[in-house]
């Protein structure tokens, strides 16, 4: 392959680093990383063009897990799509459920009882803990740790999954939220369990940080690697921790103030460099804020019904119209856009997947870096292929 075969990827505002073909630069090597690769977080493929080990071009390839999610949503009833949303980002079924429920509730004009709003916040923050812990573990795995941080993270994840299981009956595919509330009311035992988990989670974070955050190898591997400018992040529509790591204060929990989030006292951590280390640290700090929200929500959980008594599960036909519901998922803005024509199925069902949109800037972050960097940059973007491919 010669340099002239390399068509520059002219992304808006971005330039492609091109190898100079002279006596000091040999031929370029094109390596197809994935879909069978331990560090692509599923069936993702990066076709990287290497000059030595330096990436001069990176082409993401995905769609291996495409399941026609949006078309399925248009051919089933509103409620029947709820369990399908579990499978989008299969780590975070609770927040997917919530975002979909928010969209439908907007469409149908349903009210949500206060207790349900609190329970939703509790479950969303537990999901955020789960997602961020796993992300940190996987990122360390990509950095070459022999599984230790990942196993520590998974130990904590198990505790959260146990809570999800005892509440919803399923560990990962929870299918818990309903239009106008939640499916089951958490028992006092369950709430005590959630409180215990919240109380113990800080110790895990301390342990995890003691092991990793100040580690020189980790800092050398991640600081300054995969820099993302806030301008590019905004113009590419990046959301979530990846955006906040660039210093942009955009957290839907504050911006939209949806649900009962304005009642809780929590802060939004911001990074200054937008590199991999910032993306890692923002997640660790967000977990600490989530713990604050959790203890406030558990303490202030009101009584009352968990479902809006007026909500109809069977024969649910919202009036014609459109609605976009979004929440701050652990990976970024997860949104659902629905158009109703008054029938039992949505006329149009569209997902705004944070994983997919955050993935679009992968090449910009990887150009000029090495293969080893590309792996951890991808790891720090935090994708789940179920959501990217849909």
């Amino acid at each position, binding site marked *: 392959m010669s340099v002239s075969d390399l068509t520059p990827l002219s992304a808006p505002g971005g330039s492609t680093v091109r190898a100079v073909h002279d006596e000091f630069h040999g031929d370029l090597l094109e390596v197809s990383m994935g879909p069978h690769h331990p560090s692509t977080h599923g069936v993702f493929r990066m076709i990287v063009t290497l000059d030595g080990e330096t990436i001069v071009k990176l082409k993401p390839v995905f769609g291996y897990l495409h399941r026609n999610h949006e078309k399925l949503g248009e051919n089933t009833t509103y409620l029947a799509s709820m369990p399908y949303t579990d499978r989008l980002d299969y780590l975070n079924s609770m927040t997917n459920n919530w975002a979909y429920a928010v969209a439908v509730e907007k469409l149908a004009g349903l009210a949500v009882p206060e207790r349900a709003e609190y329970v939703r916040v509790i479950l969303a923050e537990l999901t955020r803990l789960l997602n961020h812990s796993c992300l940190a573990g996987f990122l360390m795995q990509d950095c*070459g740790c022999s599984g230790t941080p990942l196993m*520590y993270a998974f130990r904590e994840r198990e505790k959260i999954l146990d809570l999800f299981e005892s509440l919803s009956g399923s560990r990962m595919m929870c299918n818990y939220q309903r239009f106008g509330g939640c499916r089951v009311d958490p028992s006092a035992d369950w709430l005590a369990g959630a409180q215990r988990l919240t109380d113990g989670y800080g110790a895990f974070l301390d342990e995890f940080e003691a092991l990793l955050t100040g580690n*020189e190898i980790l800092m050398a591997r991640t600081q300054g690697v995969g820099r993302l400018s806030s301008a590019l992040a905004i113009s590419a529509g990046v959301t979530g921790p990846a955006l906040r790591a660039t210093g942009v*204060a955009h957290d839907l929990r504050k911006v939209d103030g949806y649900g009962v989030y304005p009642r809780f006292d929590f802060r939004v*951590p911001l990074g200054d460099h937008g590199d991999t280390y910032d993306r890692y640290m923002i997640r660790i700090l967000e977990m600490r804020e989530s713990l604050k929200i959790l203890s406030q929500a558990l303490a202030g959980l009101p009584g009352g019904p968990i479902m809006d008594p007026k909500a109809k599960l069977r024969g649910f036909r919202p009036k014609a119209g459109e609605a976009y519901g979004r929440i701050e998922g652990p990976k970024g803005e997860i949104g659902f856009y629905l158009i109703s024509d008054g029938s039992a199925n949505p006329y149009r069902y569209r997902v705004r997947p944070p994983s997919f949109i955050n993935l679009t800037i992968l090449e910009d972050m990887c150009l000029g870096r090495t293969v080893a960097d590309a792996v951890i940059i991808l790891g720090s973007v935090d994708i789940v292929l179920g959501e990217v491919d849909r």
Partner: protein
Amino acid sequence: MIAVAPTSDRFLEVAPLQLRDWFIGLLPQSLRWITSGLITVVAILAVFGLLFAYLTLAERKILGRVQNRPGPNRTGWFGLLQPFADGVKALTKEDVVPRDADQVLHYLAPVVLVALSLLGFAVLPFGRHLVPVELDAAVLYFFAAGAATELAVFMAGWASRNKYSLLAAMRALAQLISYELPLLLSFVPVVMLAGTLSTTEIVTAQGGWTGGWIPHWYVLTPWGFAGFVIFMIAALAESNRSPFDLPEAESELIAGHLTEYSGFKYALFFMAEYFGMCALSGMAVTLFLGGWQAPCAWLEFIPSYAWFAGKLLVLLLGFMWIRATLPRLRMDQLTRLAWKFLVPLALINLGTAAFWSLTAGWTGPLQLVRWAVALALVVTPFVVMGRRLTAGVAPRTYRYAAS
């Protein structure tokens, strides 16, 4: 020429040799020489083969315990038969060779690797009387043989005709060039102080105790400690162990040079990795930790080879602990660590050792001055260059959005 077991030592010290001599005595004269050599080879293969088997188990167990899981525990009591189950599995698996691979080199690479990694054991003094081969330039021979193993890694990477393997081969060569130098420089002070390249004499030079309690091991001197640490870091890189496992780099290059190997050839690579680890640890024990010498005078009743084995195991456990803890370096960071940190430190350490050697006669308060100067010569460059190495890398503080 047959070495005969000395009769002047305690029974346990000479028992292995006496057993060998007794067996050789049963044979006709013409077979004695070759049998004597073969017995040594077989003994090394058996002991380190078995050690390899149980080191894999120990590594999996330790890694498991570190990570909140039990590790292998189904095959035999406490998983003790797991290595043999692994061996049977590796032997019975299909051996897949890529069609486009260089068939000869692809086949040769694991064989050459294991053969070369075994060579080092020939000159290690395992006990007071247990030295397979007495060489005057044993240390030189050891490192020449050790450096050749990296060539086999390159062979494997090149011959596989796989892009990941090719990248791994490139990394292996860069790593070899970078870390051979600090490895060699780190033990030059030992040679300087002991005045010999023979491993036996280096161990003898570290004999004796101050007051019966403090051994005269080189690691207990400022330059010796620095040399030991540099040696162990370079040894980690030489044996491709975490955090320097870049040629293998599972999360980046899948398994690097191992990507296209399967079945027993794959197992052979691991065998070579563990042999290399054992040999380098054994050399570290010999050069810095007093070899087979007991740590205190009254502990001398324990046979010397047991002390060697104990020290070896401690170092090997250290390798595993490091693997369970640290993330991997990047290639440029790996070479920078070698050229900008380890090599200068090792060079300065030469000067420290020279100072130590010249001031051997200092007594009384001058001895304190000797220690202070030597310590300063070790610590100052470490701190200064360590700062420069990690410049621009520091923990950060984060701000929060105004709400």
